[in-house]
């Protein structure tokens, strides 16, 4: 049961949040300029690292704001919480894949 520091509301229990999966996925466009392969990768290709993973979460039963979490999938340690549009903090060396 994670304790998540919502950037807007402060620390809250995991049950108040929903996970939206891998973050920092660029939406390719305009549509006519995107190859089928590129579009397919955008739709379906996701990493599944052991270690650092950046995800986007929403405080669904709170402020309803989306934000990013850098989380260690092996230890469940939350390394950083940062807002949408903010850049991702650097990964500690040798700590899993970086998207």
């Amino acid at each position, binding site marked *: 049961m994670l*304790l998540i520091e919502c950037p807007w509301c402060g620390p809250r229990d995991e049950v108040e949040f929903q996970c*939206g999966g891998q973050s920092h996925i660029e939406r390719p466009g305009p*549509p006519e300029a995107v190859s089928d392969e590129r*579009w397919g990768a955008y739709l379906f290709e996701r990493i599944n690292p052991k270690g650092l993973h950046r995800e986007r979460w929403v405080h*669904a039963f709170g402020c*309803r704001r*989306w934000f990013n979490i850098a989380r260690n999938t092996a230890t*469940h340690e939350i390394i950083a919480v940062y807002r949408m549009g903010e850049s991702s903090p650097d990964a500690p060396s040798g700590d899993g894949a970086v998207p």
Partner: protein
Amino acid sequence: MSGTQPFRLASGGEVDRDRPIRFRFGGKAYTGFEGDTLASALLANGVRLAGRSFKYHRPRGLIGMGVEESNVLVQLGSADRSTPNVRATEVYLYEGLEAAPVNCWPNVRLDIGGINNLMSRFLAAGFYYKTFMWPNWHFYEGIIRRAAGLGRAPTQRDPDRYESRNAHCDLLVVGSGPAGLAAARLAAASGARVMLVEQDSLLGGSLLHDDATIDGSDARAWIDATKEMLAASEDIVVLARTAAVGYFDHNALTLLEQVGNEAACAAGSVRYRLWNVRAKRVILATGALDRPLVFSGNDRPGVMLATAVRHYVRRFGVVPGKKAIVFTNNDEAYRTAFALAEAGTIVSAVVDARSHPPDNFSSRLSHFGIALIAGGAVVATKGAKALRAVQVRSGDGALRWVDCDLLAMSGGLNPTVHLFCQSGGKLRFDEATASFLPGNSAQAEESVGAAAGTFTVSGALQSGHAAAHRALLTLDLECCLDAPVCAEERLPQPLLPLWHVSGGRGKAFVDFQNDVSADDIGLAARENFISVEHLKRYTTLGMAADQGKTSNVNALAIMASLTGRSVQDTGTTRYRFPFTPMPLASFAGRARADLFRPLRMMPAHERHIRHGAAFEDYGGWMRPSCYPLPGESHAAAEQREALAVRQSAGLFEGSPLGKIEVVGPDAAKFLDLIYANTMSTLKSGKVRYGLMLNELGAIIDDGVAARVEDTHYIVCTSSGGAARIAAWLEEWLQCEWPGLDVVVAPVTTAWGVVTLTGPAARRILEKVGTSFDLAADVFPHMSFREGLVANIPARIFRVSYTGEVSYEINVPASHTPELWDRLFAAGATHGITPIGVDGWMLLRTEKGFLHIGADTDGTTTPLDVGWGYVLKKKSDFVGRRSLLLPENQRSDKLGFVGFRAVDPAVILPVGEHVVITDADSTQRSDGYVTSAGFSPVLGMGVALGMIHGGDTRLGDTVSIGVHRAQVVPPAAYDPEGKRLNG
């Protein structure tokens, strides 16, 4: 000895001899005292045989004193309060308690299942897997399942109340022995918010049965003083009879508080309270549990764990036997020998596996006349239903039988590391104590006292105090209190690891509850089930209610020696939540019955009841499916209601319809990205139907959007999509287009919706009065107005899901009943009829209007429902790129059409497939029916569905199940749409 309780001491212990309590066990009446557990009361009454084992139905008696008890599981209570497999050691006695041993019939003394014991040499581990193979396992499964299991699950509804609570604290201390109390005491003095939890009803842990002088006073006095100090602060919560059962990520712990017994619950008390605690720091002072010794016949009633024996003597004033032998490999059991001797029990001998036991016991041994058999072992036992004698092998190898009715055994102590492991910490095997100790922590916790392998009182006090000190420093809290001091009389000498005493005949049990013997582990090793997880599943070791609390370490060590590995390398099985069994109802708490998934009522719910509505659950809303007249079937009501809409007027409550306000300078731009069609060209006061797609191009919702003004839209979604679509818009806005200046506000439940539909709708609406002109040319189909309806502020959408002139009137939710009444009264002369969801769906089926999720699925794109023109849209939108994929461009995809059965009386079955029969007679699906009904206005069946090729198939005649049908356009009724524009 005290009255009718032959094994009760005249004085001593924490029981109140002036308050006798009557109870029944296995149908017989007994008396115990206030402060007793069921276990101590049974022992006081001389009940030795108190259970039967799981597999062999061997006679069993109490072995332990708390959660580790593996033999005496009882069916507690009766009728609707009957609870199976409760450990007798954890039941506090109350007046009128009724309990019975489990797993025996007709009673515990004469148990028919005991025949398994005679056949036990054929019933070794893996017996079932190897034996019941022909013809197959399922042939036998029923019989075996009936024979298996312990207690019986109650069949009646649980009448008790269960609660859950959340809590936060600076420091959570689990366990109130010397280490836990020392930690809580220091933290309390610092002003920290502290929770101290103890699974027993009394604080004190090992101090309840061991002598100690702490800070100059007797242990009991020190406990009382500490309790008083904790009680003085409002920031301290002390919970007794509360087990910490789970340790999850980020210091989230689950506690189970046993609040009321059966009698108290009958008077209205809560039964259990589940605590979800988030602690900044955790101190695990969970103590240690005695390890049994593994020798032949070690399961006979009267063979008990040494610490438990001492606990019964000191805590309850009960001596579990008259003539005792103590068998040990460590110092701990000597205390039991002395406690028994002081209580008047004859202790014939201490059998110590060590060749050179510590000599500092010798004077006390001789004082009590206890013989010491060094380098010895107990190799066998005798007694049909209770222990009569043990066979002792002395250091020189000589064997002799010694009469006794109690054998206290100790194979060393196992620190209770369950919560530590659940927290993610790693164990290390400590050779000095021959036990697994907490290694590296994974969370903000520290194990102290016996849980960390410190088995002396002074060591426990110091480690608890020091750990609390460290925890408080991390919390920036001051603490100024000296550590409690205990003058320890002597340091314990090292134990001699003793995992298995060989040489006896008969089974030597490792896991008492599941009847796993040392031989079974040998068998598993021979058959290469040497991984501990395989061993567990092959032999069932460590399963069941006690989860191997007494058996695991012995089993691992035996497996280690059989396979030539170290205990560390052999490893442990995973310690899982929960630490002790929990009633399922404690998880549910108050969320049961009507509160499990509360149904939502529409604002005019009361009106529907008055109209005699038949309600159904539609996505969590209680909605009328129809309003049957007296004696009318639901099907007939649906037909009557639908026809009334075509002929005069119907009134429908659509309050669950999703309503989302989209406001801001970029609202139009945002909705162009969200909808597959264009919303920016919509004029103020106009309404447009739209489809929303996901990025795969599949339709996820449909509905209308009204433009209130340039920067303000109201987006209407399907009822089921209300919450989902609001969240969907937020996600795109916040994550993909944060630069757009738009606010999204879901307002679904703020507005009640009453839809007036039918050829008489306009006249009825005129009658109740509106603040705006209703003429068709002024307020045409697909328009929007804000104004007054029957003097109620309203938002009116002139849109139609029925194909008739319709007004969806939105009013503040609390005005909905009033609006309903006004419209109904005004429509009385026009034959206005309330219409339910069934009739509503029939009307839209006649019109060929899509119902997303019924007519479409997760693969349906706009191209499949005749919306090819959306690809002409210049700008991007969610899902657009996917529509260009070759798969979505195929002309033979499933497409949306109508079906008309050749026989007009036929209602095509929803879900039935369009069947194609190939030349070789194989059949395959060419499509299916998604919606159907009998149209009362057309006098024939109408149906919608999907078929490969979609509208290119119009005019084809196809087979749908046993029926023949023609592929037709979706709209069966008024295809030109003249009526809805009227």
